[in-house]
């Protein structure tokens, strides 16, 4: 198990690069070549290599769940709090994704940050290093508390990086918003963690003592847990919803999605990292990680599917009218994570994981491509100032196009296969007796149309037609450090879908569905049998009542492909010419609503102003008046009586003798009367 012995390095290497960058920033700001980029690249590349090694080991059947460090031993029955590693197919896959994207983002930063002569680079690379380390730590976490700790670290790092340009007005405010909104969700998560400990006495993910396993045993009556007076399944659902709060915040699902578009204020490579591999991915990964628990809870699953489907559609509509390239991408991210939630809620564990993976590649690609465009445009992000960049930036154009085709879900690019599988799972389970999933499916399907439209609107406005400004006529060139990551991701965005071609497999019986096989087995280790997609399938069937109908994957695949092409064609019809017009005005009032993001921010501000603030004021009055009042009264009474007591101490020794004697007499009287001495 040599690879597993080195697994902690995956987390520790980027952490070291963080530490090196911080130390350099404090003591010798100029000592690091490239402002700390090189240690960062070396560390993340190291993590990538070890992740590959771990993946090979896992492929060979290796699995591990080991305690690394016990940081609190419980007294009596109290649970032990530990840091533990869980390496299984899911975490190995995610490690590969995260470390790969992080490495590429580091390389890209050389072009985006260093070559643009940004200041504060050690701080930037320190943030990237810690961000990567936190996410990798979250991925390998073997229990819920450790996951929560790293989840919070991820949130902290996104705050630091979104607010990187803290001297401008926008970024600090966006950073605060991201921090506070996700914190609101994490509050529920924290309560959920405490609840899991209180209920199961363990928060481990794997093994017979793990809380999903105990939950299953409790439902069959083989184990007893504390449910605080609720029905067992009801209480588990409460816990499931609490943890879901953290997921909704981090993965930017409705109604806590509002932070994500604002987070575009951060440097673009950071956006790539946040959207593709770290912050936003953390939420969905968490559900996948404890899917054995959620698979027991049909109510929560339905809620996840509905939230996912709704978010997918809702965010896609907002992406239709945006002017800035990164804004379009931001709403596409929200929408795509909606698909993943839909997949998880609809029982498509593999499909959702698949989409998590392909999305990581094509969304990282799109953001880095957008970053390349932004470099070229001297940090102007308005698509209406672009146009015609195709001829001037061929590498960026080709790779960006590959990413866009993947995002829109056009065959044979990666996004098609994964999104199609998510929708297929929702459809077959919906038809198989869970009609509520059909509603989520419907929303997801409509979103495909919109996705095709906004994606190609973005491509056409940016790269096609005639240049609309002087900037676009003479773009700034980009170097190898920008192109190389784009090419790597472009290849992956094109080909990653071949890992799991469900319709092709059905048609030809070939090639194998690699990802299904990867996630299905326990490698012959029964302790990990509870973490396989096979087991999840049984749980879904037994507890959530999910069953499938026999349905070919080909027809639904053609439907969603058709819708994507229709959306793309619509965009082409409207925006293809040399000098496209702004059609958004024709939407009338709808445009205003969409442009203002359905007034979500406004209504949340209204909620704060008219509900939260008055409540806080009442609490403050209570605190000042009653709590502080009591305390102040107590203290003034005690100070007053203290002053009185001082007077007894007269300094005259005969007074003391009298008081002593009287005191003794009083004692004798009290005890004597009570003890019946004088009877």
């Amino acid at each position, binding site marked *: 198990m040599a690879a597993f012995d080195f697994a902690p390095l995956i987390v520790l290497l980027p952490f070291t690069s963080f530490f090196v960058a911080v130390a350099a920033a404090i003591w010798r700001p100029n000592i690091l070549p490239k402002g700390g980029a090189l240690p960062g690249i070396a560390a993340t590349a190291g993590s990538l290599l070890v992740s590959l090694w771990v993946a090979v080991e896992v492929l060979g059947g290796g699995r591990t769940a080991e305690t690394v460090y016990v940081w609190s031993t419980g007294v009596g029955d109290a649970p032990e709090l530990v840091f533990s590693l869980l390496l299984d197919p899911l975490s190995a896959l995610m490690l590969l994704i995260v470390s790969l994207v992080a490495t590429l983002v580091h390389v890209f930063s050389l072009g985006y940050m260093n070559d643009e002569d940004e200041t504060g680079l050690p701080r930037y690379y320190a943030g990237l290093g810690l961000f990567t380390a936190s996410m990798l730590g979250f991925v390998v976490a073997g229990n819920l508390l450790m996951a929560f700790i790293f989840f919070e670290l991820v949130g902290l790092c996104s705050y630091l990086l979104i607010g990187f340009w803290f001297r401008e007005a926008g970024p600090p405010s966006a950073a605060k918003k991201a921090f506070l909104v996700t914190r609101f969700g994490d509050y529920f998560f924290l309560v959920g963690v405490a609840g899991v400990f209180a209920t199961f006495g363990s928060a481990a993910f794997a093994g017979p003592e793990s809380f999903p396993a105990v939950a299953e045993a409790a439902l069959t009556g083989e184990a007893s847990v504390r449910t605080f007076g609720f029905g067992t399944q009801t209480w588990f659902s409460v816990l499931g919803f609490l943890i879901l709060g953290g997921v909704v915040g981090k993965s930017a699902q409705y109604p806590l999605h509002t932070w994500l578009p604002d987070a575009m204020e951060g440097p673009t490579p950071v956006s790539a990292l946040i959207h593709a591999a770290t912050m936003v991915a953390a939420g969905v990964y968490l559900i996948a990680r404890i899917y054995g628990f959620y698979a027991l809870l049909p109510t929560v699953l339905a809620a996840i599917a509905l939230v996912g489907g709704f978010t997918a559609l809702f965010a896609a509509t907002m992406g239709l009218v945006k002017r800035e390239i990164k804004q379009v991408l931001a709403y596409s991210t929200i929408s795509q994570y909606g698909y993943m939630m839909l997949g998880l809620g609809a029982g498509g564990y593999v499909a959702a994981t698949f989409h998590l993976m392909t999305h990581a590649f094509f969304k990282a690609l799109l953001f880095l491509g957008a970053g390349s465009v932004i470099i070229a445009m001297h940090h102007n992000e308005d698509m209406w100032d672009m146009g015609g960049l195709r001829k001037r930036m061929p590498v960026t154009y080709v790779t960006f196009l590959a990413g866009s085709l993947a995002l829109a879900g056009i065959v044979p690019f990666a996004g098609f296969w994964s999104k199609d599988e998510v929708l297929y799972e929702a459809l077959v389970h919906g038809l198989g007796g869970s009609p509520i999933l059909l509603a989520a499916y419907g929303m997801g399907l409509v979103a495909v149309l919109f996705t095709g439209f906004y994606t190609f609107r973005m491509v056409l406005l940016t790269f096609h037609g005639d240049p609309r400004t002087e900037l676009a006529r003479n773009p700034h060139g980009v170097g190898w450090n920008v192109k190389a990551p784009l090419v790597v991701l472009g290849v992956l965005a094109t080909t990653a879908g071949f890992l799991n071609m469900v319709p092709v497999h059905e048609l030809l019986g070939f090639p194998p569905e690699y990802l299904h096989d990867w996630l299905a087995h326990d490698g012959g280790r029964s302790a990990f049998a509870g973490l396989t997609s096979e087991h999840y399938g049984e749980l879904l069937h037994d507890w959530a009542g999910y069953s499938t109908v026999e349905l070919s994957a080909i027809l639904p695949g053609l439907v969603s492909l058709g819708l994507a092409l229709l959306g793309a064609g619509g965009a082409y019809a409207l925006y293809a010419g040399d000098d496209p017009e702004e059609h958004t005005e024709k939407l009338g009032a709808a445009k205003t609503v969409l442009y203002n993001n359905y007034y979500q921010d406004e209504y949340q501000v209204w909620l704060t102003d008219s509900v939260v603030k008055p409540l806080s004021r009442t609490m403050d009055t209570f605190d000042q008046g009653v709590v502080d009042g009591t305390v102040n009264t107590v*203290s003034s009474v*005690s*100070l007053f*009586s*203290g*002053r009185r*007591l*001082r007077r007894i*101490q007269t*300094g005259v*020794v005969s007074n*003391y*003798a009298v*008081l*002593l*004697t*009287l*005191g*003794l007499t009083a*004692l*004798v009287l*009290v*005890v*004597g009367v*009570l*003890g*019946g*001495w*004088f009877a």
Partner: protein
Amino acid sequence: MIDLALQTVPGVADGLLPAAVLALTALLLFGIDTINPKEDSLALLCGISVGGSLLALALAGSLLAAGYEATPVYGDALMIDGTSLFFTLVFASVTALVSVASYDYLRDQDYCAEFYALVLFAATGMSLMAAANSLATAFVALELTSLPSYALVAFLKTDEGSVEAGLKYFLVGALASAVLVFGISLVYAATGAMTFSAIAEAMVGAGDVAGVLGLGVVMIAGGVAFKMAAVPFHFWAPEAYEGAPAPVSGFLSSASKAAGFALAFRIFVGAFPVEMAVPMGVDWVLVFQILAVGTMTLGNFAAATQENIKRMLAYSSVGHAGYALIGLAALSAGGPNGNVLGASMAHLFVYGFMNTGAFLFVAMAEHWGVGRTLEDYNGLAATAPVASVAMTVFMFSLAGLPPFGGFFSKYVLFYAAVESGFWWLAAVGAVNSALSLFYYSRVVKALWFEEATVPLEIGRRPVGLYVSVLAAALGTLILLPLFGPVVETAQTVAAALF
């Protein structure tokens, strides 16, 4: 009743070695003083004193670690067991600290050999109090502790405050001794016995003279309460601590107080077992409950309004006596008595370090000529940061803030009280602790956050005082990881008393 001849058997006196070392050291100092009254090598005297107390500390520690078996010696007059050794440990530690600290304090004084000899005689008396197994030895040991203490308080013969304090202490002490000895005679009258085990046996037949016995018991409680400085027998404490040289104040408020508790634990647990005394109507637990609540409350309330640091510390030490009294007040027939009593012992142990340290800091301030009120301490941290850190540790630890030793000892004490069903005692203690934070943090605030009113010039850094203050701070801090073993030892030896 006492057959000294029996005790010449070698080996029996093993457990008495620490006390014997203390006594011999005192005699050695006396000898030096007699032969050469002009001996003014302070280093030599201090060295002997510290060496003797450290030797006693090491002996007591090793005997305790070896699991010393309870051994009655001198015809049951003394009982050497875990409890006596545990307390000897406390006394020897405080004696060593105070001896080191006095090195600087005594630099310009005469009669230094006498000072050290008196300290060591008092320490001998204290370790005998902790080993007393008969009312007669208890009284003699108590007087052996008290008489040197009076002289020590009045040690600064030319200082009016010191002399006045010594006289007041002596007068109140004489009254308390009279009460104690009257109590002893009443108990003897009711039971016809002096050794604790004999009294316990005789109590069975003393039902018809319960009133006499009860009166004696309450008076004995009053006598030992004087040593503990428990309300209403505490009046001497603020005066004596204020007037006495600061190291002596530290010595009295830590070691002498602990000795009072040691004696009380011995007498009341050994001679008047709860399960027998309470049904007879001799409810001494009630006595201690009243004393505990009164002492905690009055001590802390009075401390809150003091401006003079030494008086503030004096009242705070009265308050701490109240906490420690929970050890006796929360006893019940069949309850987890060992835990309660042990927790109280552990608290006294921690208290020995933090309280002595606080008084020694005051001694250092006096040495520098800093005034005695809180205001005079303003901005002291700027000139003496290391010592101020130590003082901060003492203050927070006395207040019972985590993560200092005082937090753990109070926590265990209150927890044990709750465990025995006396949650209200723990509640009173907790409320008082919260109040105490007010006046302790005033000191910290003055040290660190206030601006000095007059620019402070401190001359020499007194080596001895620094060493002892830092040693006490270290002790308070080392008790974080070591508190587990300390409380376990204390609870084990306490459980052996029942």
